[in-house]
């Protein structure tokens, strides 16, 4: 099997998974106890007749299969429903927030992965030394602190008491900043939420890379390389790291779910106007269409991100690129 066959297989699997997610999304909201329409319109002043109309509109009076078809048709038109809270199409609400989340997540991930892998590789290489123990303990600790708890601590210490950073939001309101000034302002606002996400992630990547490195350093080909008289640094770079990174890439896919959790937590604590914060808002406001829409967004993102990572992996592992015998 070569690379295109591999890619095709993964792409098809992704499509099937997305379909399954759509089904799950549908089911979850139908299993809710109680009348979904009554849930949506909690105001007792709404008349029974109006409720009946709503039921018809949402197709709840039809059998389940009918509802499902209606749901799929709606989705294929790109319609995710209307948000109760904002009285606007859900797609609009979400689309507005995506850039903020992307900015936060991508910055955090890039920094965390680069630092985490580098530190983890060093820890693995220097296994057993004081440096390794230090990095290991620090990482385990960072890994154990929930992002939202860390966020609250950072918020209190650095924003309230020390006033070094803003208390929340993405930019100083009514500042009139433009261009570069604006970017600096956003960056200043982004620092703390980014930091709270990064810390957990670095811990995770150090642990991952370290153990992968330790596995690799015990392999025979490392001894072969040293037996050829290759300089130690090259052995580490070309032989150890190249192989140690493979499982790390795979595990990155699985970790994306955690990145999303981190983003939701950080955005909530720091009032960062992204898609993560929408989750909190939707829960508090009991805005089910919005909640459903955001869930869909995140779930599909995970699938796509995993697909992307699988493809990258196929490219960097020669056993897949060239095909096993």
């Amino acid at each position: 099997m070569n690379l295109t066959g591999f890619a095709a297989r993964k792409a098809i699997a992704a499509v099937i998974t997305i379909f399954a997610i759509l089904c799950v999304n549908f089911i979850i909201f139908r299993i809710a106890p109680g009348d979904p329409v009554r849930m949506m319109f909690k105001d007792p002043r709404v008349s029974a007749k109006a409720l009946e109309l709503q039921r018809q509109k949402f197709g709840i009076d039809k059998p389940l299969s009918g509802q499902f078809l209606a749901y799929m048709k709606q989705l294929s038109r790109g319609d995710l429903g209307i948000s109760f809270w904002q009285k606007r199409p859900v797609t609009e609400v979400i689309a507005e927030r995506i850039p903020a989340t992307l900015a936060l997540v991508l910055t955090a991930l890039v920094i965390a992965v680069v630092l985490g892998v580098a530190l983890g590789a060093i820890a693995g290489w220097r296994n057993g030394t004081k440096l390794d123990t230090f990095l290991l303990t620090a990482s385990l600790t960072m890994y154990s602190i929930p992002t939202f708890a860390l966020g609250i601590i950072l918020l209190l210490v650095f924003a309230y008491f020390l006033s070094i950073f803003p208390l929340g939001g993405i930019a100083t309101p009514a500042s009139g900043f433009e261009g570069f000034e604006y970017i600096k302002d956003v960056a200043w606002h982004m620092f703390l939420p980014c930091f709270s996400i990064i810390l957990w992630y670095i811990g995770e990547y150090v642990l991952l890379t370290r153990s992968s490195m330790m596995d690799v350093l015990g392999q025979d080909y490392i001894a072969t390389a040293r037996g050829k008289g290759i300089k130690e640094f090259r052995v580490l770079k070309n032989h150890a790291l190249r192989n140690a990174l493979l499982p790390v890439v795979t595990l990155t896919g699985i970790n994306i779910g955690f990145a999303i959790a981190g983003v939701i937590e950080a955005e909530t604590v720091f009032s960062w106007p992204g898609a993560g914060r929408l989750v909190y808002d939707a829960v508090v406001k009991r805005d089910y269409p919005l909640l459903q829409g955001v869930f869909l967004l995140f779930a599909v993102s995970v699938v796509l991100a995993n697909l992307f990572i699988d493809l990258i992996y196929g490219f960097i592992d020669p056993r897949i690129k060239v095909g096993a015998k």
Partner: protein
Amino acid sequence: MALLEVENLKLHFFTRQGAAKAVDGVSFNIEPNETFGLIGESGCGKTTTALAIIRLIKPPGRIVYGAIRFDNKDIVSASDEEMRLLRGKKIAIVRQEAQNALNPVMTIGKQIIEAILQHENVSKETAWTRARNQLDLVGINGNRVKAYPHEFSGGMKQRAMVAIATACNPKFLILDEPTTGLDVIVQRQLLELINNLKQKLNLTAILISHDLSVVAETCDKVAVMYAGKIVEQGDTVSMYQNPQHPYSQALIGAFPSLKGEKKKLKSIPGAPPRLILPPKGCRFEPRCDFAMKACKSEEPLDREKDDHVVACHLIN
């Protein structure tokens, strides 16, 4: 003058339970262009000795006594950097066919030129040409330089290892159980290859194996190791025809022969001693058919008999 001199080498592994005396006073010399065989059962210290020559022993192992001289250069006290310069360039090692002896994400060619470029000042093109030649040399089509290890069979991988090891024309080659784990036909191919290369490249080599037939085919001199010591050494033919030490006799006698009369398979009862607290006298004494009183209390010293060097009280 000998290319490699090993004199009373002692190498211990320091574990929590004590020091395991894996190599305990081993001495031998290897002349240029000679192939020296080291045989013995698992755990006797032969691989450890070989790795000591190229100083690839990792802690908790440590050389505690003795000398190793390669081309008149002291190995035991050489610095890490000096050793690194020797490895691949002057002394090379081909290890047992381990599944993972080759880096799975690097092409075979790259792994060959890596060695060349590290030690010699040649251009990349020259290195790649030499890599192709190396593959041809070991009987693999030179066009496969861009192939990855997983595309090769077990025998091919082993031959590729030989290609990598000889890339810089080393003077000395260590072959550590090169044929173990390969099927008989592939073994034969590899042995023929080794014999060919020996002549072509003027190699001096040490070959470690527990397989007597392999050693018999390729080696000029043979040493038999037991429990960290060499019990007998001499030139191959006379060692096989006329082993003097009871262990050598049992070892060579235990090997079934395809030709000749049908004999009962003779095995050696018992097991080798634990190396942490080796016995005071001869280490083979508990399993020896000819054991005498002296064997329990005194360690036998090297004595000469019929051009063999034997460590046994029976010889006088």
